[in-house]
């Protein structure tokens, strides 16, 4: 009985960890999902913007301590949220001067496959940001500690007096904030005029032009939002995970796996895809050694791409 009890405890712990981390992965994937859904751009540099979000939050809250008036708990989370608009601006400019030059045009020697140019350009951007980050920020891992980082809520399990679940407070708050932001974004995309404009540009760009929509500007805004959202997710991760300039790499495949799993083009799907990846990652620790956690994600990713490339939600639901 006790071994079953222990198994249940471990399983539930992994499940909860999976849900909490899945919420944040979900937010990251939503960011990438917007970019791909609207612009059909594969952005290899997405992980680097995640990293920049982390460092922005770090410098704002810890480095320059500009949010001291909000206190040690509200400050970091506000900082994470502020990373959104800050990186939105960076992304907007980046799109205007770099990315827009290669979307739609046929380059890199492969005729008709213009998206290779985007892939390669964003790879270049990723390298510059990653290593530029190393130069600017140094390689010492940083973190944005809050009083919640080391504390946990304890939920006793009913069947055994000694068994309980530990919910790290920082992770719970980060997860909740992620869900709130994702919900706000869902509202924005679904209900607001801006959101409808983006969806129209995503659905049929030439028809959108006929309606009088400036599709180039729509793409730029979508790119900015997508990066901003991912930056917020980064800021949230920063509150419980140490980071250094190369951390983006760890998350790139998670984001892509989540978006592909959810169905490229579906924002809701991207969130669920990210959630699923989080669950897979945490639950896989039950059967696999920790180092292979991420290998498990790759395997899942490759399987989806081979077997069901439209993802779980690709055709079933309406886009968004």
């Amino acid at each position, binding site marked *: 009985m006790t071994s079953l009890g222990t198994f249940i405890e471990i399983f539930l712990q992994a499940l909860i960890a999976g849900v909490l981390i899945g919420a944040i992965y979900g937010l990251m994937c939503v960011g990438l999902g917007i970019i791909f859904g609207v612009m059909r751009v*594969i952005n290899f540099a997405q992980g680097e913007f995640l990293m920049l979000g982390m460092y922005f939050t770090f410098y704002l809250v810890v480095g320059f301590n500009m949010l001291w008036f909000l206190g040690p708990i509200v400050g970091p989370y506000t900082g994470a949220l502020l990373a959104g608009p800050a990186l939105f601006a960076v992304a907007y400019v980046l799109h205007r001067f*770099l990315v827009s*030059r*290669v979307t739609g045009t046929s*380059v*890199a*020697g*492969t*005729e008709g*496959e213009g*998206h*290779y*140019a985007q*892939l*390669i*350009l964003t*790879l*270049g*951007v*990723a*390298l*510059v*940001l*990653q*290593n*530029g*980050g*190393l*130069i600017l920020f140094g*390689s010492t891992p940083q973190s944005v500690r809050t009083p919640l980082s080391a504390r946990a809520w304890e939920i006793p399990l009913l069947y055994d007096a000694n068994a309980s679940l530990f919910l790290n407070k920082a992770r719970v708050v980060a997860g909740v904030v992620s869900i709130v932001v994702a919900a706000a974004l869902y509202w924005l995309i679904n209900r607001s005029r801006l959101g409808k404009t983006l969806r129209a540009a995503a659905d049929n760009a030439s028809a959108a032009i006929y309606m009088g929509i400036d599709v180039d500007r729509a793409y730029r805004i979508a790119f900015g939002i997508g990066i901003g959202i991912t930056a917020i997710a980064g800021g949230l991760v920063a509150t419980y995970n140490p980071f250094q*300039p190369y951390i983006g*790499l760890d998350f790139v*495949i998670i984001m*892509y796996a989540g978006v*592909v799993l959810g169905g490229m083009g579906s924002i809701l799907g991207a969130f669920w895809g990210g959630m699923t990846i989080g669950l897979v990652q945490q639950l896989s620790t039950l059967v696999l*050694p920790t*180092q*292979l956690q*991420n*290998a498990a994600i*790759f*395997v899942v*990713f*490759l399987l989806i*791409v*081979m077997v069901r*490339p439209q993802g779980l939600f690709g055709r079933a639901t309406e886009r968004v």
Partner: protein
Amino acid sequence: MQVRRRLIAPLLVIAIVAITWISLGMVVANSYYQLMLTLVPIWAVMGLSWNLLSGYTGLISFGHAAFFGLGAYTVTIALVKFDITPWLGIPLGMIVGAVAGIMIGYPTFRLRGHYFALAMLAYPMALLYVFVWLGYQEVPLPMKREKPAFYMQFSDYRVYIALAVGLLVVSLLISLAVERSRFGMSLTAIKQNEAAAEAAGIDTLAWKMRAIMLSGAVAAAAGGLYAVVLLVVTPESVFGVLTSAQALTIALFGGVGILWGPLIGAAILIPLSETLQAHLGDVIPGIQGVVYGIAIILVVLLAPEGVFWRVRDRFQRPYALGAVRATPLAPHIVTAAPAPAPPRKPILAVSGISKSFGGLRAVTNVSFEIGDGEIVGIIGPNGAGKTTLFNLLNGFLQADSGKVVFAGHELIGLKPNRVCRLGVGRTFQVARAFPRLSVLNNVVVGAYATTTNDADAFAAASTALAQVGLIGRSDASAGRLTNKELRLMELARALAGRPRLLLMDEPLAGLASQEIEDMLAVIRSLVAQGMTIVIIEHTMRAMVRLSERFVVLDHGAILAVGQPSEVINNGGVIEAYLGKKWAAVRARS
């Protein structure tokens, strides 16, 4: 052959590069520069391996680190665990690389575009985690003091330089052999238009698999030598994203699809980044990555095909200066349709084929016969399913039901390259050429399916060019052709496979009236030589004069079959083209 004539020049260049490099290696004493002289060829080899797959086929791989790392670890593990010398370990690594190529290629080639790129990215990252888990965080290669040369360990650094140059020469020769043979031409055809290549008889999957096997083997060799030179292997250094990025950047920067490209790229980028790393590495760590990142960005924006092509195009402009203006159409001249021909044996029998996409019925129960030596026009209003019909005949689409029999062979279920080999040729609406190659080299690709050696292939290509009247332009650069000449070249490529039945998709679209006359003359002469031709066309004026029979499709079904004069007076046909009310209104007035 035309291609072999020019082999002397590149071989000479390779020899000069090798000799110069080794001489440089002999005189340089500084150990840092010696290392650099060793690394440049190794990375050039890596770039060449990337080129073998991605440069020639256009399938961009972001995961070549997988092969590199597998090669490095094979050599390392073979030495550490089994005491196998790298002299054997490197070839072993190449085998591992080739096998990995097959295992990765087979499932991944089914993916398109960005899915392919993402999947390729995932493989080395997965391998990285696996090797970390296996406990190979950092594996130094053991020193073998008793028989160092046997284990590829030399105290004199210059030997390593010679080894690296040796590997480079081998890789350059492999690339040259590929480029100048039908291997390279087939890959280039795939890159330019995979569907057209299939239709011309090229087994695209088989060639892609060969390319990735070779590419994997060469990359693994580079990885193996890298391990020997650096004497320590970590998962990040061989499976990391930077490794894949370096392979890609070196080839892309220097020149895609040509063996000199990676050489140029490595010669410029490696010294640049290594020097910066050495001098500034303490102050500005990560300068290497920044250099590669900026290099990639600049290349994509300014010279998308690489430095080599950018420079060469400057001196040998492949494209015609200024657009060739077509003359506007002359007024309508009515002439009679050709007299009906005697009855012929059927060569193509289509019975009851149907095709639906989801709920949409594109082609419904279509049946007709084409006689040997006939010219038949497939006509019908927009969206009638004509091109879908051709795709069904060719093998690009599988019919849901029905039979297609060509000269005794059942065509349904065959891949397009098989259909081509049976004697069915196809031209496409959009004619895409290899602009930097000569017209003859553009056409010869169509002859690969039906010839075994290059001499025959070029002979077939020349015959085809004579048939369309372009023999005088055989050596011209394809980028300089007029539209009509491009169409004729496309036709010649299909003819080079010596088809018995030719399917032509809108060969006259957009041509001026004199050009249309020229095309019609060519088509008639082909039929006179015994070919059977089926044409989809909208230019009715020309079609009524050219075709012996019409097959009219509307909404995916046959509306009428018969001679032009009958068909165009057919009420149903008039209704389909001009609208139902037209007939009613005309009847009233």
